[in-house]
């Protein structure tokens, strides 16, 4: 299959990025060192090219919302200017995708989904919306740059104005810069203070170059992004979330609104009643070795689960990961062993997030 290119491909190559396949795209994994890029993001500020993610615009009368019943997010209850995390589910309650919804206007929402699921999600959502709703897939014309790190508000404000400092965590607004009106949200996938900028495809090279003019701002790739999200215990679709997993198993009951109707709700209510058989947990290793996808998890010699993903955490200086275990087979701080064909790693069950003190909720 031919890989899709980001408009910034040439810029990445100029910076000697190692480019590789991800979700059908040809994307930068790192620009020299995954670990250094992860550390730089937590210390200063990094910019990530996230063009590949799917972006949809839905417009409909909020009094007759059909979107509300398609996804778990309470789209009509959330205030304009807010962002909310949620799911698109199967009837069986398992996860087709995880997504973030932005209420841009009273009657307009942006939905941001995983690159690997863009086509599937577009088909499902557009086919379920009522006839009076409009659906637009803006993925290929809208770029997304994530500016993440404790210094992010300083540099984004120099481009989009000081107003961005008023954005609260998980809120968004439209800002005028580079001759257009563009959405910026205070969201991210790193656990640091950060902003996601949605801009026309043909303006993104200019924005990328402008951001990198700041000495403190460096490019970071998908490798660092994976470390940063795992240190925060954020799930990744394909690893922690799949069509075999429900949001209850992944520990997301708090983001579900059972007061409204949504696809998958009945199955989730049934699962709640009958019991949740597996639970997502954090794994903290005793040394620098990292758990890897599908390694087995043992406690007292008994197999209790499997690893969904793992990395070396440069901030904890040890291997960390996430995985599923049978519910109640272990609790936080219990000693476990991770078993792979390369041997055994000892560690413990850890509470998420692994990193508790970050710049995520700084008041700018």
């Amino acid at each position, binding site marked *: 299959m031919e890989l899709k290119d980001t408009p910034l491909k040439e810029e990445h190559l100029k910076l000697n990025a190692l480019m590789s396949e991800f979700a059908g795209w040809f994307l930068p994994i790192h620009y020299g060192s995954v*670990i250094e890029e992860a550390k730089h993001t937590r210390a200063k500020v990094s910019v990530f090219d996230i063009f590949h993610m799917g972006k949809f615009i839905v417009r409909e009368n909020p009094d007759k919302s059909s979107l509300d019943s398609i996804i778990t997010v309470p789209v009509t209850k959330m205030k304009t200017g807010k962002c909310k995390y949620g799911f698109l589910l199967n009837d069986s309650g398992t996860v087709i995708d995880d997504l973030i919804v932005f209420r841009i206007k009273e009657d307009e929402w942006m939905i941001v989904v995983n690159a690997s699921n863009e086509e599937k999600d577009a088909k499902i959502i557009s086919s379920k919306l009522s006839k009076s709703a409009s659906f637009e897939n803006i993925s290929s014309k809208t770029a997304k740059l994530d500016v993440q790190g404790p210094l992010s508000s300083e540099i984004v404000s120099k481009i989009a104005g000081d107003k961005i400092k008023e954005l609260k965590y998980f809120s968004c607004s439209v800002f005028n810069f580079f001759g257009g009106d563009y959405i910026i949200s205070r969201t991210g996938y790193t656990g640091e203070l950060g902003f996601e900028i949605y801009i026309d495809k043909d303006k993104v090279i200019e924005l990328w170059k402008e951001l990198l003019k700041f000495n403190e701002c460096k490019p970071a790739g998908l*490798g660092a992004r994976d470390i940063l999200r795992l240190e925060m215990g954020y799930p990744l679709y394909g690893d922690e979330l799949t069509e075999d997993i429900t949001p209850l198993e992944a520990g997301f009951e708090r983001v579900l609104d059972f007061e409204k109707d949504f696809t998958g709700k009945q199955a989730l209510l049934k699962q709640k009643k009958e019991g949740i058989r597996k639970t997502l947990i954090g794994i903290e290793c005793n040394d*620098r*070795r990292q758990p890897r996808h599908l390694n087995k998890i043992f406690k007292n010699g008994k197999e209790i689960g499997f690893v969904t993903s793992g990395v*070396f955490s440069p901030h904890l200086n040890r*291997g960390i990961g996430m995985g599923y275990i049978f519910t109640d087979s272990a609790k936080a701080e219990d000693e476990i062993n991770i078993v792979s064909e*390369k041997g055994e790693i000892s560690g413990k069950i850890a509470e998420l997030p692994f990193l508790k003190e970050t710049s995520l909720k700084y008041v700018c």
Partner: protein
Amino acid sequence: MDVRSGYYYTKEHEWISIEGNKAKVGITDYAQHKLGDITFVDKPQIGKILKQFDVLTGIESVKAASDVYSPVSGKIIGFNSALENSPELINKSPYDQGYIAEIEISNPSEIKNLMDANSYKEYLKGLEK
């Protein structure tokens, strides 16, 4: 990719630098590039006797867990303990500060099974085609 002259190389991208009957062993610049950031090097068992191309130790990077093979037969007599806390030395200095182990060579004639710097350069060219 940097290839150090005077060293010998394996097809699995280890290098060996020989002085008398002792040698230092590490992985090449090409290997560290391919693996990405090295995050862990397992301490090999000092005193262990190895045959040529036996597994010397394990190494992990952000990308994969892999084995490092001994370029020659002999006894493991040393480990670069700086790698325990700074495995990134392999990325920064694969041929010097990032060496992995020291080996007492038991059969010097096995060097004929290894590549010299020029042959290894040619070998790398072949891989990149």
